[in-house]
């Protein structure tokens, strides 16, 4: 591949814009070691007390565990619902399949503020507000379109020849699926799981409509905390979350390739 030399002007502008892009993530690191009671730059003293404060804050700790449990449950349910759906759409080719796929991925196009309001109104009349089940269903609506799209792509790039060979040799459709299709889909299923978990873990707008002070996810608890007072505790929590995300991203990059998962 022939390369064009990159001009100095472009290098400098790109570097400046990268600084802008990363500024909010870069700034939370020094802020998290602030010894001050409020957000101020530069901090007048340094300490790790805000990291301790994160773990002592019952609301944040509770919300963290709610988010993790919710993320895991949503990931499992997304796979249980989306794998059969993707298989039906790609391999069984029902009439109107394209139309159905558009319908199933449509929530992705809907602004979350509109989706959140719509769910609030319906769930209020069903009495599901502030319930774990309601929250689970809301997150499922948000993650399913991502999961289905990724699995449909995975399945349609698998050559059907192996499955056909197995079927010709007498394996029933269920056996073909379990012994051939599912193992071949494994990388795509891994990627879908990671994406579903991250999407659920980061979801905030729809959850804002569904949560109560008693049952809150971590992003919602952080939102209310920042709305109230932006103290360095959120910086410490942010650093922990960014580190967690970084670990997940690096693992994904090593195992399936980040480029493959996100840039198509």
């Amino acid at each position, binding site marked *: 591949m022939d390369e064009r030399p990159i001009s100095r002007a472009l290098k400098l502008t790109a570097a400046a814009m990268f600084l802008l*892009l990363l500024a909010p993530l870069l700034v939370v690191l020094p802020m998290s070691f602030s010894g001050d009671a409020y957000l101020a730059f530069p901090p007048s003293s340094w300490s790790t007390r805000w990291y301790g404060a994160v773990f002592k804050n019952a609301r944040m700790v509770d919300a963290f565990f709610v988010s993790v449990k919710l993320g895991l449950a949503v990931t499992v349910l997304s796979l249980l619902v989306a794998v059969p759906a993707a298989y039906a759409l790609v391999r069984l*080719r*029902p009439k109107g399949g394209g139309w159905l796929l558009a319908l199933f991925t449509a929530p992705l196009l809907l602004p979350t503020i509109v*989706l959140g*309001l719509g769910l609030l109104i319906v769930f209020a009349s069903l009495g599901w507000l502030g319930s774990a089940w309601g929250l689970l269903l809301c997150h499922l609506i948000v993650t399913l379109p991502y999961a289905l799209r990724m699995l449909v792509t995975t399945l349609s790039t698998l050559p059907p020849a192996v499955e056909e060979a197995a079927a010709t040799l007498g394996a029933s459709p269920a056996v073909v699926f379990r012994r051939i299709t599912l193992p071949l889909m494994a990388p795509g299923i891994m990627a879908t799981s990671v994406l579903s978990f991250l999407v659920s873990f980061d979801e905030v707008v729809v959850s804002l409509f569904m949560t109560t002070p008693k049952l809150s996810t971590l992003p919602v608890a952080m939102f209310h905390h920042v709305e109230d007072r932006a103290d360095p505790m959120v910086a410490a929590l942010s650093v922990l979350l960014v580190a967690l995300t970084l670990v997940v991203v690096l693992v994904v990059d090593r195992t399936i390739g980040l480029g493959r998962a996100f840039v198509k």
Partner: protein
Amino acid sequence: MTVAAAIAPTRPAKTGQPVATTALTAATLLLPIVAINTLGFLVPVFNLLLMSMRKVEASGALLDAWTAASWLKLFVDGFYLQLLWNTVRVSALITLLTLLASYPIALYLHRSRGTWRNLLLVLVIAPLLTSAVVRTYGWIAILSDQGVLNAAARALGAGAPLRLMFNEVGVVIGLTEILMPYMILSLLAGFGRLDPRLEEAAASLGAGPFAVFRRVVLPLSLPGVALGSLLAFVLSVSSFITPKLLGGGRVFLLATEIYDQAIVTLNWPLAATLSIVVLLVFGLALAAYGRVVRRIG
């Protein structure tokens, strides 16, 4: 669209089963997603249409009667027209700034290779995987009276702190940065059509760097620009977290008003009406995008 093409009926399924059985299997496998989609998407969205015409008391109690009051309010009450205009104006400004800030990064990424490129790509995607709350909080740390920029301004001898948040300036800065990854990825997809040999040909025929950019690079990148701008615009119209936190209740936009009407004022019919307005703005933006794409081919 590759995903839609993937399931186009180009060849019959070879399951060796009668068609009726296949259809039945497909229906069974699709049942859970149909149920969830209906309950969590179709019903809530159509219910918004109905809700926008429900009669409501000041207490938020819904009456079993229909009225066009919420829709009338939208056009008669100057506040809501102002709100709509504010939203469109601020979103258009954010879109433009996002494009200007993202273009150099995308062009640089397009021209770099190997591990360095992958590393930079991770840096572009990483913010996308970080909660909007965290990134907005980062901007508070930068823009507040005690923040990084004002500390720098003080060091340079400024007296009163610069007002960089709890106003439109803060919302515009924060959202521009938040939307940059979407724009960069769209631009990168658009740059795929840009063959480096074209630039070399133009340069060897005597075009200066600026002429090469204006006559070759920029025109060929326009589809990516259009896609990125559409994304940035619609995401900015519907974004809520950043305007709420950086606007501090002093910047009035459609999305923040929907939330306030739904949660604080408890006027669900008005909130529903405003959310349909958001969808209409989306539709118009999509239609405009379609026209632009047809023109630039």
